[in-house]
């Protein structure tokens, strides 16, 4: 049972990955993705990889979810303005 901690962290990661995929609304998905990034960071610390965990915390929980949120916002602006203007391009 020496591996209890790594295995628990691995199972948490697998669970969170499933949660990210099954969240269908991208805006909510960004939040779940952030939590998944944190779960990955915890796993990396457990696997004795502090360098990687640091990088994952900064990117996986901050930068990528932020980019997803901004993309969702930018797309929503085009969606709401589209129907009456039609395809002008």
């Amino acid at each position, binding site marked *: 049972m*020496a*591996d209890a901690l*790594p295995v628990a962290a691995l199972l948490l990661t697998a669970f969170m990955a499933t949660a990210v995929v099954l969240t269908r609304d991208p805006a909510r998905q960004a939040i779940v993705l952030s939590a998944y990034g944190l779960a990955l960071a915890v796993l990396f610390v457990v696997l004795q990889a*502090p*360098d*990687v965990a*640091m*990088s994952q915390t*900064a*990117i996986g929980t*901050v*930068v990528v979810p*932020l*980019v997803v949120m*901004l*993309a969702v*916002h*930018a797309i929503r*602006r*085009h969606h709401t*303005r589209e129907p009456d*203007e039609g395809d002008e391009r």
Partner: protein
Amino acid sequence: MSPRGRLIVGLFGATGLAVLFTLAALGLPGFGGTSHPYGQRTLPNAIARHTPNVVSSINFDQRAFDTLGEELILMASALAAVVILRTVRAEQEDAAGEHSYGRAQVYDALRLTGYLLLPVTLMTGVYIVAHGYLSPGGGFQGGVILGSAIHLIYLSGDYPALARIRPIPAFEAGEALAAGAFVVLALGFAGQVKAMNAVVGLEVGCAVVLALAKFFEQALLVRKQT
């Protein structure tokens, strides 16, 4: 292809992948075992070159040429994102973004926290870049922290201030200079772990700021001309 047909084809491929992956995984050395032939070969080299953080030593000394390739991928994709998201003529950019996206209504506590965390986070980023050869950290991690730190100002509700403190041309120049310096270091002076950490930190930070800036422009400022 209909969604149903796509799912069937996808499941077919996924089943094959699952079987092959399981077979491959069962052939790997056991989890947590002591067989790490490649890793063990890197250790004496890192110690001989006085780089206590072996991960930094591998990235910037023993595998510096590979890291050069990864750096250029990073620069190319950041550049491509900037080019794709440029505002075209049909879209009118809101001059200063003041009227609808001035100071947002946020709680004073949030604003204060954001302003207080900004210098601390920047300091942490510099520390992580500077001590990358010694302790966990380095140019990649510190660069991302530096690049995302200034967006705390946006969280404090002040997008115009964020736009003022990150002049895009300066960051574009910084990105280009850092990438050039990294090419020179990786080809001519591989093993200068501290210098390479600093250069990578600058480049990653600039890339993060540039890509995020373009997404912010798209999300907040661009309006379609009607």
